[in-house]
């Protein structure tokens, strides 16, 4: 008798638990942005939950370098969250093709984005979109305004002025001219090669031509940035070979370096750390009066796990992410991650405003290696990391690097064979 009642009680509580769950759906978001945890918890999620009672959202980020590996394992094991933050291009395309991401083409809110914004999360023919674009990042240089004023340096717009400014800082000796290391390798490619490169290969024009096989990595437009990077070596601090990414960030925010080759994602971190005034300048053009090109890289999207148990709630969330309301919260809470929504968003942060302003003056492009070209083995993006480091260290000539990269690309990519 006693046992039966216990059983009934247990059964009852289970049923009640299930009922409660049916009322309150919890969505889990997979992400690599562990830096943004507080932002999601304090601003984005409360705003969404207030507008959509009955749906709870949990943001569960993992470390950026491990995200892809962790996510793939979780998806294969069936333990991944309902919503998946999408890396641009092939990583997410592979997830879609493997059936892990839902086709979102039919979602009405996708109309809020331009084709360029959606391009990072589409099939090659552009027929299917599988992630809602969230934000892009823009490359350029952040500088220490106090240092520039103290040394009487004007913001450089051409390459000659840029190196003249670095020479002046080096001569003075108070500041390390430029804060960047080669230990972690990716900065050299991302903040080096793909930062200054678009001015050489004329942005989209060169990038598309490279994908079509009309240009080669041995062309002057693609090797010349390495020659420029080779000149950077002498302006980086002592022992830059072992300097890591956090080292560089700290050196700059402690006011020990004058220029920081940057991605706009640094803004919020730098605002919190640096107690001097910062400014930004776009990658210097080769000759005065040239059209400028910037890397305005589609970086974050968000999609739906095809195996989710709550597709309606997940779709509600995605539609909200595509709305101007989200763009406004996100763009201002995370200055430096610029919303891709077609509705213009007014940004408050001066540094972010300055950088996003370049969109009006310059032609936008994305990083050269990201679309299609990093699909094979050897992986062009990873090879570019090594090549950019070798260029800065002066270990190899730009022509050698171009030849090596071209050989690797041609080994698997038909348009280059």
């Amino acid at each position: 008798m006693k046992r039966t009642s216990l059983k009934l009680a247990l059964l009852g509580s289970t049923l009640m638990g299930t009922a409660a769950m049916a009322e309150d759906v919890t969505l889990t978001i997979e992400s690599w942005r562990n830096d943004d945890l507080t932002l999601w918890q304090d601003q984005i999620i409360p705003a969404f939950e207030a507008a959509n009672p009955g749906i709870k959202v949990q943001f569960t980020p993992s470390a950026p370098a491990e995200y892809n590996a962790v996510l793939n394992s979780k998806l294969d094991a069936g333990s991944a969250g309902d919503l998946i933050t999408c890396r641009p291009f092939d990583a997410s395309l592979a997830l879609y093709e493997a059936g892990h991401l839902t086709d979102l083409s039919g979602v009405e809110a996708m109309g809020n984005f331009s084709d360029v914004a959606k391009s990072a999360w589409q099939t090659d023919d552009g027929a299917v979109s599988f992630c809602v674009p969230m934000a892009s990042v823009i490359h350029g240089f952040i500088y220490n305004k106090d240092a520039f004023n103290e040394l009487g340096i004007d913001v450089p717009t051409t390459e000659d002025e840029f190196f003249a400014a670095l020479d002046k800082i080096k001569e003075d000796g108070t500041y390390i001219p430029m804060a960047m290391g080669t230990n972690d390798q990716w900065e050299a490619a991302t903040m080096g090669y793909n930062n200054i490169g678009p001015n050489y290969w004329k942005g989209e024009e060169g990038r598309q031509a490279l994908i079509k096989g009309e240009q080669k990595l041995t062309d002057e437009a693609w090797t010349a940035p390495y020659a420029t990077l080779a000149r950077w070596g002498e302006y980086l601090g002592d022992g830059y070979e072992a300097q890591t990414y956090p080292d560089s960030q700290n050196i700059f925010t402690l006011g020990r370096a004058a220029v920081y080759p940057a991605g706009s994602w640094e803004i919020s971190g730098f605002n919190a750390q640096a107690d001097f005034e910062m400014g930004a300048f776009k990658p210097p053009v080769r000759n005065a009066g040239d059209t400028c090109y910037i890397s305005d890289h589609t970086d974050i999207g968000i999609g739906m796990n095809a195996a989710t148990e709550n597709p309606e709630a997940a779709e509600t969330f995605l539609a909200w992410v595509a709305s101007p309301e989200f763009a406004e919260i996100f763009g201002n809470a995370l200055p430096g991650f610029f919303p891709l929504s077609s509705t213009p968003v007014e940004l408050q942060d001066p540094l972010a405003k300055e950088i996003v302003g370049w969109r009006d003056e310059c032609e936008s492009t994305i990083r050269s290696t990201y679309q299609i070209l990093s699909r094979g083995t050897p992986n062009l993006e990873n090879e570019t990391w090594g090549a950019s480091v070798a260029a800065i260290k002066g270990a190899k000539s730009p022509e050698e690097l171009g030849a090596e990269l071209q050989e690797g690309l041609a080994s698997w990519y038909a348009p280059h064979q």
Partner: protein
Amino acid sequence: MNRPRFRWHIVVFLAPAVLVYTAVMIFPLFNTLRLALYSEVDQSRVFVGLQNFQTLFFDPIWSEQFWNALGNNFWFFLIHMLVQNPIGIALAALLSHPRLRFSALYRSAIFIPTILSFVIVGFAWKLILSPIWGIAPSMLDAVGLKSLFAPWLGKEEYALTTLALISVWQFVGIPMMLIYAALLTIPEEILEAGEIDGITGASAFWKIKLPLILPSIGIISILTFVGNFNAFDLIYAAQGALAGPDFSTDILGTFMYRTFFGFQLQLGDPHMGSAIAGAMFAIILVGVCIYLFGIQTRMRRYQL
């Protein structure tokens, strides 16, 4: 006829260990080897036989990375054999000296790094050797040797050796402890007998103690071999999955990780990754077999 009863208790007592070991070790091992024989074509898994191994060993793109990783692995192992084990033996010999004071303190101090996590060791040494915040440059500066400092972890020619020495620092306690234990088992009578024959001090070590601890040194060598060829953590913690600069610290473990799980834009390839894991397994197996059948069986043992 009285047939012996089947001894069920043996099965019962063995079962838990066998089941757990099979589930977490044997099954994954063979499944990994099986995975190495497949490849993915158009989202489906197809059997390709030994093609993955052929790619790994003969395709120039893969083989260059593989031989580089294997070569680095051998260098990593060589440093351990030449530095870690002799130092371990020397420390054990010193510690077992009966008149050494505070030997328990030294023993613990030297052994402590062994229990630290790789992540802590990698991070701490990265900071120590950092050209920007590290204490290594300022310490060298204090004795006027600043010119000897280089950003070791960032230079292709030094990075692997530096990491190997960090690993030696971490693990020197293990050979020390094993040899120390072996030295303690040597009976006093033998040493006294030697003393009567005029063998004392250093020559007692070379002529009596060393031959008696040779089996332990053999075990340590094989443990070092297996440990080094399975190494991954320290390199990953200190240099990341790309094992920079320019793959100069890439060993089989990091190569396998990068291939299996993917890295940045490079997507994971479980089948090639398994092929590398299979090659690692084979290398270790061959090494252990050479030791077991080629060396251990010929080693002279002394009845103490």
